[in-house]
């Protein structure tokens, strides 16, 4: 028969209110009050942070689950593809969109040779690049042919070195897809296991390896280019 049994959420003081907010037990209207106070009241925000910190080790129990690739695609559309309105020519979004469109056009141009049998699984493309490196590849994944087509855009391999292509899925160890043959374009056949991962949106990466490829089965040199596969 404590007082708290009959009192509203504020009665335990700010500290308990913060604790209840972090624990997640409050009703919708109480949560709204708390979240407004976090924005407006630094002292209250500090109490909330302290409870977040105390309880956060429990979050270790949340298992990691890779979200499907469509979530990131929808997110990108939502954040970065704004429809141009007034002041088209001065709109940053417009120019970004134009740049994206030219990349897409280039991708389609490169993908055309692959486009023969019309109705089958979607094609995925990736632009492989990295900061601090001039190596660039454009990769087109053709599910029907079980191939990744690569177009070498820039960057030379050093003497005695090869570029090796890797597939990385989530936080798993990279899987080698083989040494990239020298030349302007290359096609690499892929195994069914890799194929399935690629369809789920794995990342492609290129590393610099000794001639003939990594001796260990894992990348030994720097990643000179990498990118996400996106559907076109």
């Amino acid at each position, binding site marked *: 028969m404590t007082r708290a049994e009959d009192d509203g959420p504020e009665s335990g003081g700010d500290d*308990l209110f913060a604790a209840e907010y972090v*624990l997640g037990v409050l009703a919708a209207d109480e949560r709204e009050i708390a979240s407004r106070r976090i924005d407006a009241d630094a002292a209250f925000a500090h109490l909330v942070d302290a409870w977040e910190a105390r309880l*956060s080790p429990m979050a270790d129990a949340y298992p990691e689950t890779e979200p499907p690739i469509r979530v990131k695609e929808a997110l990108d559309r939502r954040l970065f593809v704004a429809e141009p309105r007034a002041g088209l020519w001065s709109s940053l979004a417009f120019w970004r969109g134009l740049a994206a469109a030219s990349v897409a056009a280039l991708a389609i141009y490169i993908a055309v040779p692959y486009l023969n049998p019309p109705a089958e699984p979607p094609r995925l493309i990736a632009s492989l690049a990295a900061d601090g490196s001039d190596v660039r590849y454009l990769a087109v994944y053709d599910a029907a042919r079980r191939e990744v087509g690569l177009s070498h855009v820039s960057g030379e391999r050093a003497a005695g070195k090869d570029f090796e292509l890797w597939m990385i899925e989530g936080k798993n160890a990279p899987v080698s897809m083989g040494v990239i043959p020298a030349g302007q374009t290359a096609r690499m056949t892929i195994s069914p296991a890799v194929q399935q991962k690629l369809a789920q949106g794995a990342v492609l990466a290129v590393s610099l390896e000794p001639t003939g490829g990594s001796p260990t089965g894992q990348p030994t040199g720097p990643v000179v280019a990498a990118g996400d596969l996106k559907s076109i």
Partner: protein
Amino acid sequence: MLKKVGSFSSTEANGAPGAQERFRGRNTLQLPNLGNCLIWQPMTPQDISNLIVRTSMKDRAAFDLLYRQTSAKLFGVCLRVLKDRGEAEEALQEVFVKIWTKADRFAVSELSPISWLVAIARNHAIDRIRARREPAAYIDAALDVADPAPGPEAAAVAGGESGRIYRCLDELEKDRAAAVRGAYLEGESYAELAARHDVPLNTMRTWLRRSLLKLRECLER
């Protein structure tokens, strides 16, 4: 009061101190080679902090990398709270919209980067179920949910920060500890917990408040 990153949270705190020192000496905004730290080296909390800071400066590459590194954890949070794949996918999208637009808030938070991100996801998912559910409509659903949180033994083995909170939970009465865990991990409300444990709502409120105070006392001991 504004201690930054790398401060707590079990999995993060024991990372190689040498590596963190090295990063600290550097300008935070220079991630040397995006490609290199990209994938097969697990990221340190300092790396994640860098990505959040760069995201606040609207650096898309950093944002993409942040998504790649943390979306699985945050999706796990959304799934566990919302228990519906479609809704969890939508929530995850909204969570990353928030991260993109509010990344500058990280600078004034006292949380470690992962805790900060998880807090955004948890709060968003909880707000969603509160908005979705009419009181009383969800009680059966809540009853069916098993509690896969690690038992005391597993937690003790896990050790570290996480082990400590579970040891402190063990000091509470069993059903109260279960209520705290259910509330935190599943986002259950007072009303749901009261129904599940078959006690009046205000009793549940009193239980949990006392449990929270005891937990704090134990954690600060």
